[in-house]
């Protein structure tokens, strides 16, 4: 187990390098010249050239990558072209907000998803099942923007929560709810699907024969058998939310990584794009690693090989 963890960590490291390399090459291929963008409209060719030289962009790709990589290994993500600030500082500044929203969003969607998915599975074929199913489709199909603003209107007309910003618990509620509503549909459908299978199993029958309460049967016996794919989905979501949820962040004025990334993409601010990419890649790899590592704990039949 410990060995496997070490090996997986080493692999995770390689994956990150791989992501860095691919991203680097792609950005290199991107037809936009950062030096030009920085130099501005009135720059002469000479100025552009000297800026290019300052940034090391006149070096061959491999040299550039090596420079970046060796910086990376020292924990240096480089400096933003546009902001002339350490990328690390920019990302760290937004990390708490991103992590908060990620955690809150996942909690909401998982709770909603598991609750409604379970109810639907138990009441399979009934009215409630149909309603839950409809709702999950509405959630999944609705454009983020609309859902966010609908909730927003709630805040405006009812004034229960602050409209935008970051800092207190009240601020988290609406964005987390938006993410939750949007994502819960997936969870609900997956939980329903897995629970339908599990509820048919003999061991659930055994649990019922013991006279256990429905709640205990569902939470203690059925859910743990249905939860594996959910754990994998959480692993996926960790990564996706870490990369930033652009629209929701924008609507709620949430200072997350998504806004940073979006702006950087528009400005071809390569160090920031690289930094955000690597941060979210790290989160994704970690999320997956966690999902894989806890799988055998959830289902002891799975061998850790």
């Amino acid at each position, binding site marked *: *187990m*410990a060995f496997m963890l070490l090996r997986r960590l080493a692999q995770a490291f390689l994956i990150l390098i791989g992501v860095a390399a691919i991203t680097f090459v792609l950005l290199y291929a991107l037809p936009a010249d950062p030096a030009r963008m920085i130099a501005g409209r009135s720059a002469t060719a000479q100025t552009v050239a000297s800026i290019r030289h300052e940034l090391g962009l006149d070096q061959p790709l491999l040299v550039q990558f090596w420079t970046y990589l060796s910086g990376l290994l020292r924990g240096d993500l480089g400096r933003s072209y546009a902001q002339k600030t350490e990328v690390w500082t920019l990302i760290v500044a937004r990390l708490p907000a991103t992590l908060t929203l990620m955690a809150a969003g996942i909690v909401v969607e998982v709770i909603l998803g598991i609750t409604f998915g379970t109810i639907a599975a138990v009441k399979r074929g009934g009215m409630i099942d149909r309603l839950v199913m409809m709702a999950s489709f509405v959630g999944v199909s609705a454009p983020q923007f609309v859902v966010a603003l609908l909730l927003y209107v709630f805040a405006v007309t009812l004034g229960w929560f602050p409209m935008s910003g970051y800092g207190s618990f009240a601020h988290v509620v609406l964005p987390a709810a938006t993410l939750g509503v949007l994502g819960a549909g997936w969870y609900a459908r997956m939980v329903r699907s897995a629970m339908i299978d599990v509820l048919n199993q003999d061991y659930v029958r055994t649990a019922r*024969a013991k006279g256990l309460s429905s709640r205990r049967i569902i939470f203690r*016996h059925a859910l743990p058998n249905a939860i594996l794919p959910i754990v994998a989905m959480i692993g996926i979501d960790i990564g996706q939310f870490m990369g930033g949820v652009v629209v929701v962040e924008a609507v709620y004025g949430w200072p997350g990584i998504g806004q940073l990334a979006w702006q950087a993409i528009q400005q071809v601010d390569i160090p920031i794009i690289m930094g955000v990419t690597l941060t979210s890649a790290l989160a994704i790899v970690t999320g997956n690693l966690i999902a894989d590592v806890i799988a055998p704990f959830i289902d002891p*039949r799975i061998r850790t090989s």
Partner: protein
Amino acid sequence: MTEESGREKPVLRVEKLCVDARTPEGLKRVLDDVSFDLRAGDTLCLAGESGSGKSVTSLSIMGLLPKASLRITSGNIILGDRELTRLSNSQMRDIRGGEIAMIFQEPMTSLNPVMSIGAQLIEAIREHQQADNSETVARQMLDAVHIADPVLRLKQYPHELSGGMRQRVMIAMALSCRPKVLIADEPTTALDVTVQAQILNLMRELKGEFGTSIVMITHDMGVVAEMADRVAIMQNGRIVEQRNSLDLFASPSEPYTRRLLAAVPRLGAFAGTDGPPRISKAPLQQKQRETAPILNVRDLSVSYGRGSGMLFRRQVPPATVREISFEIMPGETMGLVGESGSGKSTTGKAVLGLIPFSGSVEIDGYDISRLSQPEMRPVRRSAQMIFQDPYASLDPRMSVGRAIAEPMTIHGIGTPAERRDRVADLLRRVGLTPDAATRYPHEFSGGQRQRICIARALALEPKLIVADESVAALDVSVRAQVLDLMLELQETMGLAYLFISHDMAVIERMSHKVAVMHGGRIVEAGTRREIFESPREDYTKALMKAVPIPDPTFYRSLRRSAG
């Protein structure tokens, strides 16, 4: 029914119970007018044909029929003064466990795979006993069902236990509920006879201590004789005969009952012979000493790694099977008996290369430890396994017909039509109807599933079959039919068997040689005659002694002399 009507009201009464199965072809009657009474403190044994509806009856009482396919169409089930068929779900929940508990027939699939044994037991204890020290109680329960090393077992998961252990966990769980009525569906099929005797004892104690009434489903007439106050014999969804146990054994009235009793094997029936009885007229395949063994096992050891190990623990667990060696010649059967948990199934899986092992195993001349998956194919063709747990070993999403045809398809034998015919033939020979082919595993009874697995293993006409408790769930008449089939194949085609069973009578009937396992080692091995007629080891002797005798008078006299 009239003779004892003066006595107190029955605790449980089943009246004219009818159950229908929904099949794609329409409704099919599974239970037809089943009625019986269970009086307080009594033991009612339900015996009868495999697939006759015993399990369905007990599930109906529990209110646990699978909703999608089975439904009570008429009849009443009365517990005390409540009509169970009309109770709501939540009212039923109050009854389950505390008032009626059930031991299910298939322990593997009936235990939650992702919950530790301890958690599952403790939960039952918490629910039904006012015990603060539920963990201690759980340990005591495991002790009571004679599971060694209960502290370790509590932490383990169902798949880490042997078949017999799982069954005992099921029993412990049901008993921890301290129910008024206990329904035990084939509770001892996977237990060796010594443990079985202890378990039966335990149930009797329970009866004495808490006044529990028991509905016991079993095909083992010895167990019936030992336990039953009354016996109901089922066939084809009906109760054909229902009587006091002494009367029934003394003078069975129904032809089916008579047939059943006649088919009961008696230990020692083959004393003085070397081989199994002849079934066919086929000329006996002359055992040639010079032919190579079909299975040659040398120094086989197996150890299970700690699958769900903690982060940094990498200790090597003690081996489950330790350096055992034996060989089986073509056309020969070796019986493997031994204590539950001694490593019989593990040995069986290892010799077919299904789990990692050390040592050498040669099948039909191939050293399987050196073969890659594709190279194993010819070996797989000539060696088949019948798993101890038939339900778990069938793909729930594959129809029985396809499952049985599976080995033929895999090895590219026959055209689809030929395979269909062969499947139908196999089904018939194991006592099922060919229409079973279109149905799915969950639609069958325990014994029927076992026969499906047997049919699947026989489909290829292999040279070697590892049969792990493969007739345990069959009633004696069907069992005799299946055993005869196996013997016939052996005679006609020189099949060899590694026959794992706890039923000494079956072993006696089938084997040429017998090996006795204890604690992962073969403690005694020899020809059948040697083992059965002059056992050397104490353990072997104890095994012989513990075999139940299918005669209730024997037990009555025994008890009288004891008490």
